[in-house]
């Protein structure tokens, strides 16, 4: 209709129309806890909305740097939030397609000379128009080996992060302390990553709610005894090594379902629908967590950190 610059913009209406509200509501509904993360995402969304409004009013604006780093312990929801972030940025129009490409060192770094650059470029091409999620990004940089091909991947990444800011957003994720070391060893990344979001560990009460929602999604529920046992389980499990927050809970529930199935299978009478859906105290109390945790002879196994 008219190309004239509008004089006012209703931010509230923008917020409703762009679909940002849906993403944020979904985030609130589906993710338990993570209050600081949610407030940071809200702030980022507000910034981007304001920035878009400024652009429409013809005020000075610069495409904001949107590369992010997510730090936190395993199982705190970094990947899940990255998917939501891709949806959010897509609705705000900062990325064209809104898909997420999740990679680790293996997908970027080659095995011999001349293998890394094409491999990294291949991944970058796939990620164009969306979000590139690099899990455990610090593995790209191996200071003890100066011939490591990771450095080559880092250089290509830095170049694309600078030149193709309109085309893709890079999110790097990993443990907080190792990410800090990674950023201090690679100042190029530090200056190109504007948003650092820290994912706190879940509280015991939040983990209990997570357990409930996971079971709910699978059509199971805990009876009273099991609920108490689960709370106790969470307290004990936290103190033991290799605790991975929501992921540990998911694994515990998977094994509880296994024991429940076994229990129902060995009993000598027909089962009811109610029994099929209920996890009892016995299913949870059978876990090794209650008998002192990891077996000494298995605790040395590093490849199996979530198994108990």
């Amino acid at each position, binding site marked *: 209709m008219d190309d004239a610059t509008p004089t006012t913009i209703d931010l509230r209406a923008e917020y409703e129309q762009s679909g940002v509200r849906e993403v944020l509501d979904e985030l609130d509904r589906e993710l338990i806890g993570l209050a600081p993360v949610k407030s940071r995402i809200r702030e980022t969304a507000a910034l981007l909305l304001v920035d878009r409004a400024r652009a429409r009013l013809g005020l000075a604006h610069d495409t904001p740097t949107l590369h992010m780093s997510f730090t936190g312990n395993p199982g705190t929801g970094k990947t899940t939030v990255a998917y939501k972030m891709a949806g959010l940025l897509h609705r705000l129009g900062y990325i*064209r*397609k809104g*898909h997420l490409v999740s990679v680790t060192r293996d997908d970027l770094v080659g095995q011999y000379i001349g293998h890394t650059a*094409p491999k990294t*470029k291949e991944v*970058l*091409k*796939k990620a*164009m*128009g*969306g979000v590139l999620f690099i899990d455990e990004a610090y593995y790209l940089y191996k200071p003890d080996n100066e011939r490591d091909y990771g450095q080559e991947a880092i250089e290509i990444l830095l170049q694309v992060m600078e030149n*193709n800011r309109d*085309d893709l957003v890079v999110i790097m994720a990993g443990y907080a302390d190792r990410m800090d070391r990674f950023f201090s060893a690679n100042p190029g990344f530090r200056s190109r990553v504007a948003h650092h979001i820290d994912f706190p560990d879940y509280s015991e009460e939040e983990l209990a709610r997570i357990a409930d929602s996971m079971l709910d999604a699978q059509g199971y529920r805990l009876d009273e005894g099991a609920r108490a046992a689960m709370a106790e389980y969470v307290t004990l499990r936290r103190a033991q090594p290799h605790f991975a927050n929501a992921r540990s809970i998911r694994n515990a529930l998977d094994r509880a379902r296994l024991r429940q199935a076994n229990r129902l299978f060995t009993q000598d009478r027909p089962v009811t629908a109610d029994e099929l859906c209920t996890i009892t105290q016995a299913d949870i109390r059978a876990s090794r967590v209650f008998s002192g945790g990891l077996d000494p002879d298995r605790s040395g196994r590093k490849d199996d950190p979530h198994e108990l």
Partner: protein
Amino acid sequence: MRITQGCFSFLPDLTDEEISAQIEYCLGRGWAIGIEHTDDPHPRATFWEMWGNPMFDLRDAKGVMMELDDCRKANPDTYIRINAFDNTRGFETVTMSFLVSRPAVEPQIIMRRTEVDGRAIRYTHEVAR
């Protein structure tokens, strides 16, 4: 002589935005994109040099445009075309192909007549530079 091959070749050369838009269309239909180049525009020269592998799982045209820029840099004065491959059962063929780069001075394609037995005429085409 201006070579006309593939889609859009009777139109003015496509700009980069137009090429991007065409690639978006191809990707939207789930076609795989390949880039090819040659210095021999003879109509019978169907096999051009491939620039890298065909790209099967892209979501955005930017990925192709990056490759195209690299290809132009490496082969500045050649013909470059983009092929879109449809892997639908029953098609399994290139469904769209268009030129995206031409050399500054294009070669001529000339026709030669040769008289053979019984005054029959054979016609061939040759690229003359």
